């Protein structure tokens, strides 16, 4: 193959593919926004009532003061469960990433890499199934409550987000320049001092990106959480209370609502909230990813 002339072929296809991707993404955003805003524009629900309301009774007749579409229980459930999952998962994930890159780069990577890939490839229904049969009875018998709880959801999610955090963190740690390592050791650092004071600060941007990606993954997960969290539309009072998330709330109601009804529109608005959250995560990733030497 000669490299002298301009190569024929791909460009038009590539541009076309990119254009399709952009158009499809834009179409999805516009569609969700259009359906999601109907709650406020057509049904005249006040956005504050929607976001801060604690009562979800879209089926309550008007004569009894309904319908009510407050999504705070869903929002609170999603935020609490995802944050908790990432908080539990991050120390373990970052430590694993350090282990693989610094402590045992040879066999560590050979063993951990496939393990992480297997983790990432397990379908969420399997995580949920295991959680339902192992975690839920365990929590019920040893910690109390129903077993279906915020804690069960967070534990299942903490395992599910690990591949994301470890994967991104490993890449970030690997990208730290060798000169920094040599300099640190040259100045007499121990391995711990190098990891603590040089490696992690230098890779901070990348590691944080992994954490935010993990958070975003946790926020969007539906099925596995739905199976163990107990789907109760109340703001949870403790780790052992059942709760509900935005995604499982949509999944549970969507098949039963008629298009164009307030109930259906409110579900679209919840989808819009999820979309807005993922935009927020992207912005945060851009911000933290920009910082840090290896970012």
């Amino acid at each position, binding site marked *: 193959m000669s490299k002298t002339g301009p190569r024929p072929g791909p460009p038009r296809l590539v541009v076309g593919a990119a254009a399709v991707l952009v158009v499809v993404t834009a179409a999805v955003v516009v569609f969700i926004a259009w359906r999601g805003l109907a709650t406020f524009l057509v049904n005249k629900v006040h956005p504050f009532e929607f976001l801060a309301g604690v009562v979800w009774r879209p*089926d309550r007749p008007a004569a009894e003061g309904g*319908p009510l579409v407050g999504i705070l229980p869903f929002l609170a459930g999603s935020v609490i469960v995802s944050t908790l999952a990432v908080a539990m998962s991050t120390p373990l994930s970052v430590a694993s990433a350090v282990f693989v890159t610094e402590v045992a780069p040879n066999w560590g990577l050979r063993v951990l890499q496939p393990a992480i890939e297997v983790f990432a490839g397990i379908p969420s229904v399997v995580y949920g199934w295991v959680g339902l049969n192992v975690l839920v009875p365990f929590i019920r018998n040893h910690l109390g409550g129903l077993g*279906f709880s915020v804690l069960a959801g967070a534990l299942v999610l903490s395992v599910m987000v690990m591949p994301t955090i470890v994967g991104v963190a490993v890449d970030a740690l690997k990208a730290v320049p060798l000169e920094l390592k040599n300099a640190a050791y040259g100045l007499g650092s121990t391995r711990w001092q190098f990891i603590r004071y040089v490696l992690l600060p230098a890779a901070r941007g990348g590691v944080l990106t992994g954490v935010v990606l993990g958070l975003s993954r946790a926020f969007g997960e539906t099925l596995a959480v739905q199976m163990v969290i107990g*789907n109760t539309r*109340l703001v949870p009072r403790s780790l052992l209370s059942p709760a509900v998330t935005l995604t499982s709330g949509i999944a*549970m*109601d969507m*098949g039963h609502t*008629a298009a164009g009804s307030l109930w259906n529109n409110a579900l679209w608005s919840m989808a819009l909230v999820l979309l807005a959250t993922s935009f927020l995560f992207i912005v945060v990733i851009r911000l933290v990813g920009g910082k840090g030497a290896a970012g």
Partner: protein
Amino acid sequence: MMVSVLCTSALVPGCSRKDAGGPAGSLVIAGSTALQPLVDQAAKQFMANNTRVQITVNGGGSGAGLTQVAEGSIDIGDSDIAAEEMPGVDASKLVDHKVAVVGFAVVANPRVGVDNLTQRQLIDIFTGRLTNWKELGGADQRIVVINRGKGSGTRAAFKQWALRGNEEIESMNVDSSGEVRQTVAATPGAISYLAFSYLDDSVKVLNLDGVAPTVENVTSGRYPVWSYEHMYTKGDPGPLAKAFLDYILSDAVQKSLVTRLGYIPVADMQVTR
């Protein structure tokens, strides 16, 4: 192709093929997942008898079935709930075909120590006024109410006929009848409700006002918690839809498939609503 179309539409003599004159064409049906097994099986049998018919049966939920049939995007919409009770659906254009009856039983964890509830007690449990099985003469065990999802047809029927329309407390929601059975069997103090076809020994079936939830008690009108399964068409059904609905209401389906799948034949009902 042309020949077969002519044969069906005109029923002309001279079409001597075996199934000539029988219905031909395609039907798209969607909606209730509770009704789906029955419609699915009936469609398979119908297609076996009428080789030029193609029937597609999808789920999607009662809401989706009603919306789509009202829009005219499908031929028949299946629903556990009467169209009049589904918010956002214009029921005036829809024609109801009641194809089966489903009975619902109150079920509890086997260790609650209670066999019978009055309807008043049942309402008090589901509205949160009774919270311990002890108050009902059972074990000292907190009552854990488990509901189906808010849009479930089973939940709607239960609320209407067992709770007399009283609004349930917020509680754990479970996505399907199979999950209800599993959760009630595993959770101490749990109470919920299931269609008759889902009942088994893993859960305790409670009598209501002293009446056992059985097919006989439903058909005789003594047991009140049951509802119709509906198949809706937009306006009067077309020839093929009508042929299929007639088939579902024929003895061939009502006397075998309907009872085998745990529904109650409409014709057996001595009471109507």
